[in-house]
């Protein structure tokens, strides 16, 4: 492979067609987003947030969705999570159309303080979704303990979330998702509200969970460095109305460390490339410009 080649797996679009992200042969994709469009009707007329999005997520992938602010990242995530209806197109999980929040999905929100229930202790917060899903008590106890252990919070099960620091609270939210054992974990800018050092720790935690537990993760962020450091793949979104600008493979080693990985020439190249694409997107360059 050429040292500076960026392997884009964006399906080459015929002249004038809407470009799409990487798609997999039928039956292989865990999550499929097909021709997704979202138009909000407001008092000032309809606003097209998402124009046409198509990509697939395979089993065990860790993909980052990155785009300029206001590019409809959160809208997209909420549609995938079944919290918001699409205007056109569809989301398929395991080949089944998503119409409401699917049982096999978990979401980690940016606002951990509002996502955790302040009236429940840490362990109870992690346990509640399992309880409501009808998991037997003994298994619940084991899964909660294992999840808290995995995020390094085994020592505070009896604390209330509001007694913990921001980073620890987000760990609780992640533990809750881990214990739920979802097929797909969606993360909506989960580390945007924590300080830089905590953020680095949480990024490494996410990579570790992905590697050790074999989770499939779709990670939304506006941070270019974060997307390249975290992802095995980065899906770059255009500015609103959103289409897939580019879908690239991050061919960095699987074992990444904050110091060494970020100093690698390859990291810099990839970061440079993604940065350029985002700048292009901000300036209004669109892959579907011919349209």
């Amino acid at each position, binding site marked *: 492979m050429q040292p500076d080649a960026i392997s884009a797996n964006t399906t080459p679009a015929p002249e004038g067609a809407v470009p799409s992200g990487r798609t997999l042969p039928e039956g292989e994709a865990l999550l499929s987003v097909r021709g997704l469009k979202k138009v909000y009707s407001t008092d000032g007329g309809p606003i097209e947030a998402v124009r046409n999005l198509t990509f697939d997520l395979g089993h065990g992938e860790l993909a980052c969705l990155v785009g300029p602010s206001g590019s409809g990242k959160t809208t997209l995530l909420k549609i995938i999570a079944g919290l918001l209806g699409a205007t056109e197109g569809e989301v398929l999980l395991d080949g089944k159309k998503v119409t409401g*929040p699917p049982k096999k999905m*978990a979401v980690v929100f940016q606002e951990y303080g*509002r*996502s955790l229930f302040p009236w429940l202790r840490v362990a109870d917060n992690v346990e509640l*979704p399992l309880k409501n899903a009808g998991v037997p008590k003994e298994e619940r106890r084991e899964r909660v303990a294992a999840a808290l252990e995995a995020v390094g919070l085994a020592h505070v099960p009896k604390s209330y979330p*509001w007694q913990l620091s921001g980073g620890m609270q987000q760990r609780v939210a992640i533990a809750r998702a881990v214990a739920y054992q979802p097929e797909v974990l969606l993360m909506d800018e989960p580390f945007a509200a924590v*300080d830089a050092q905590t953020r680095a720790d949480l990024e490494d935690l996410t990579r570790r969970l992905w590697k050790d537990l074999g989770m499939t993760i779709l990670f939304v962020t506006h941070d270019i460095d974060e997307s390249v450091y975290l992802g095995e793949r980065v899906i770059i979104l255009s500015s609103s109305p959103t289409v897939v600008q580019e879908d690239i493979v991050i061919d960095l080693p699987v074992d990444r460390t904050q110091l060494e990985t970020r100093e690698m020439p390859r990291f810099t190249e990839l970061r440079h490339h993604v940065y350029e694409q985002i700048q292009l997107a901000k300036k209004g360059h669109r892959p579907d410009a011919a349209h």
Partner: protein
Amino acid sequence: MSAEVLKPGRAAQPRTARTGARRSVPKPVLGLLGVLGFLLVWEAVPAVGLVEARFLPPASEVIIALVRDFGLTAFWLAVGHTLMAWAIGLAVAVVSAGVLGLVIGMSPFLRRFTNSTIEFLRPVPSVALIPLAVLLFGVKIESSLMLIIYACFWQVLIQVLYGVADVDNVATQTAQSYGFSRFQRVRDVVFPTVLPYLMTGLRLGASVALILAITAELIIGSPGLGREIADAQSGGAISGMYALVLATGLLGVAINIVMRQAEQRLLAWHPSVRGEAVL
């Protein structure tokens, strides 16, 4: 991980009041001194002839009458009647307003549909219903209950409606994304959010219920402390009357203490409590 240190929760911080209290008189002692001072003034006023003793007997005489009351079955029967009306009325109001508040609050349509009606009925003073209560139920306990329930119902309903409106959007979406059923969402997200508001409604309602229980007994004559007060007054037992008034005051204080205790127990996690509660 070293970047994350466990921040002490607000509950874990030492109370600042303690350092301030070392220099001045402790709070409970100061409160007790206040009560003693009040009783002394009360004792002195009829003694120096400022007010005639047949209108305001000295405090000592009233307290003796109250202690004597404590030994009488009739007194405890009256307390029982008053407390029964209070408890039943409050319970009916809290349960009905709680359930209705949840149902109305969670439906935008019902909210708009009932808003004007609630705003119209709420300010009607409960005592304005006394003639109606007498017409319907005579001097029985039901008259008291009707007044108590009406007054408390709105207090609680308004609080619950505020509580439901305060349910966090992200918390709701979290519950949805984990596939909570509608019932589970109400039980695990809506109800705990509403609980602090419900407790406020309950505490306000508890005082209002006592006021109306005594009012109903005084005016309608249903059995209880209120009627005892009216009887003592018409029988010329002035010290006895004051003793009973004192008893209603003590009852109010007791109710308030119990309500505050219950609130602190149930809402140890809530920002309004977690500063003071001992975890």
